[in-house]
């Protein structure tokens, strides 16, 4: 173990633009033991960590003569990019050495090698860096403290100085955070609202959609309140899904382009055609029913159906004004009027005088006087054999136009 009584620091200014430049070196001299060693301080100018350095050291005497020349290798430097580093290991020198001249020979970086002025690529190799530097040569505690003090001082000087060299990318990405956050918020809010409202609607609403029909369900029965199929001829089934159809509600076929509707009525069902069920069906020409169940047609059920020419609802009971707006009706078949005190004109309302039926078939128990007043009917068929002929019931009709229960 030596004790160094003399410590000299030298600045090295030759080759400052070397890829790894020697900035300073310190000579530790033990005059009593005639020993000398050196520590180096380098600066890595490249933007890559440095792992290996090899340089030639020429030891010069007081006259500048070369005493000795040696090659020094520091392996596992772990030096940072664009920064100073001080290899821990010291170089032993000749006692007579006064100064040093250093020439860089090789330097290995993360992705490149620099060998005697030339760059080589070693990007296929990735050096593994030890977390700590190689173990230094044994020095006395005071020398170690002196070295540490020097390093701290160098760091303070470095901090005081501005950054010697910096290279930063200025090609910015034009991106604003808040608008992106806002868009995410919108998406979350809207989707969440949609899911929540759909679930609430599903629980609270009694309207469902099956096979093109909007159904308002009540237990096991349903009323058709909408239709969005594009067919001309529609056969309304007696069951849609698991529900028995008992009603054509207001707006069931409103505004549709259907031409022909066949209603299938279950035998034990009282079917209702509400007012407005066929409102504004401008293309509707024919409506009929099959099945034994009774059908009740309420007022304005066929409101504004200008093309309706045939109604065949043999089990239907018609209410007043149920045929209002059906001015082109030619064939009418139904059971009877709900209120048998009403006349035929009451079915058609104000436009009764425009009506001209070629054939009318129904099965009333009786009809009031002047039942056929204001409505032209060419042929009447009364199916009820027990029909009671009241006074003047057939006013406006020729006897040959009437058929009762198969008899003329």
């Amino acid at each position: 173990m030596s004790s160094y009584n003399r410590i000299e620091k030298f600045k090295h200014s030759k080759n400052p633009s070397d890829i790894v430049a020697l900035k300073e070196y310190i000579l530790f001299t033990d005059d009593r033991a005639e020993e000398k060693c050196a520590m180096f301080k380098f600066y890595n100018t490249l933007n890559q960590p440095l792992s290996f350095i090899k340089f030639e050291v020429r030891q010069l005497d007081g006259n500048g003569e070369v005493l000795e020349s040696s090659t020094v290798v520091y392996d596992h430097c772990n030096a940072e990019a664009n920064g100073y580093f001080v290899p821990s290991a010291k170089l032993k020198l000749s006692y007579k050495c006064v100064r040093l001249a250093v020439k860089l020979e090789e330097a290995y970086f993360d992705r490149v090698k620099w060998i005697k002025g030339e760059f080589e690529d070693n990007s296929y190799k990735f050096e593994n860096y030890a977390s700590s530097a190689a173990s230094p040569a044994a020095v006395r505690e005071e020398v170690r403290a002196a070295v540490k003090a020097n390093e701290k001082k160098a760091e303070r000087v470095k901090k005081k100085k501005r950054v010697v060299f910096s290279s930063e990318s200025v090609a910015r990405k034009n991106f604003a955070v808040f608008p992106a956050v806002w868009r995410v918020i919108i998406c979350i809010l809207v989707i969440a609202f949609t899911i929540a409202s759909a679930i609430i609607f599903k629980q609270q609403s009694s309207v469902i959609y099956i096979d093109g029909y909007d159904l308002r369900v009540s237990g096991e029965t349903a009323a058709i309140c909408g239709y969005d199929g594009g067919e001309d001829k529609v056969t309304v089934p007696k069951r849609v899904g698991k529900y028995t159809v008992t009603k054509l509600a207001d707006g069931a076929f409103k505004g549709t382009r259907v031409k022909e509707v066949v209603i299938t009525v279950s035998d034990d069902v009282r079917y209702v055609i509400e007012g407005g069920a066929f409102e504004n069906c401008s293309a509707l020409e024919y409506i009929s029913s099959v099945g034994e169940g009774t059908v009740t047609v309420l007022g304005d059920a066929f409101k504004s159906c200008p093309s309706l020419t045939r109604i065949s609802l043999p089990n239907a009971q018609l209410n007043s004004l149920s045929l209002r707006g059906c001015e082109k009706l030619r064939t009418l078949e139904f059971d009877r009027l709900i209120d048998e005190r009403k006349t035929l004109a009451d079915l058609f309302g104000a436009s009764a005088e425009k009506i001209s039926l070629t054939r009318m078939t129904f099965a009333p128990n009786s009809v009031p006087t002047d039942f056929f007043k204001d409505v032209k009917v060419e042929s009447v068929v009364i199916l009820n054999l027990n029909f009671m002929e009241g006074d003047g019931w057939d006013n406006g009709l020729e006897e040959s136009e009437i058929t009762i229960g198969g008899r003329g």
Partner: protein
Amino acid sequence: MTIIAWRILCIVSAVLFVAGMIALACLRILKNKYYHAFEEDELFKREKQTNSRNAIYFTSGETKNYIRKYVLCKTTYDSYLVCNYTKKFQGITYFVVEYSARKKVIAARKITESNTSDTSKVIALSRKCAYVNVLIGEADGVVINTDVIRPLSITRIRLYALITNVLVFLGLFVARHVVLEVIGMQTMKPYLTSYFNYIAVGASFLLCLIGYFITVKAFRRKNVKALNGGALEYEFV
């Protein structure tokens, strides 16, 4: 509206959404625009070494008063740049704009160096870099160029804001419809004709409209910040 109509609207929205996304990607509205176009510098000489090819160029324009020439060193996988200063500077800042072989900008770097020697430090460049333009920024307190990248124009900001928010609206329309299809067919059509649905569509539209103004405001504020080096407000004494 019938369910068919809603589905048609959904399909149209999906198509428009995809087309809009492609258009947005292709237009690259927010792409950086540079003050300086590529200038081919005068080649001084080329040298081929064992493992690298070096080319020395003279700078041009105002830069040549501060940086005389530079050498591009290309190895198999890397490129490096070293500049030769006209003199030693206390502090110098310059911009290195890197171009590909097709003379498209691939990177822009800002180099700051103090207490320089006659040459710069070795500057690592992108692997794809084939050419560079060196543009002086500041030298010993004299400011020549403050930036190489133009701030975004208001037209581009507005266009970007409009397209992105329209795309969000269309995307939400499609997403909502898909969610409804998944939740259940039987209640879907009645839901679509209920006020819930119209509220959702209206709310999407309104939120996207607000998003448009937010986007324009945010980008304009960002522009101002970039131009002022981070300071949005300053006091006049």
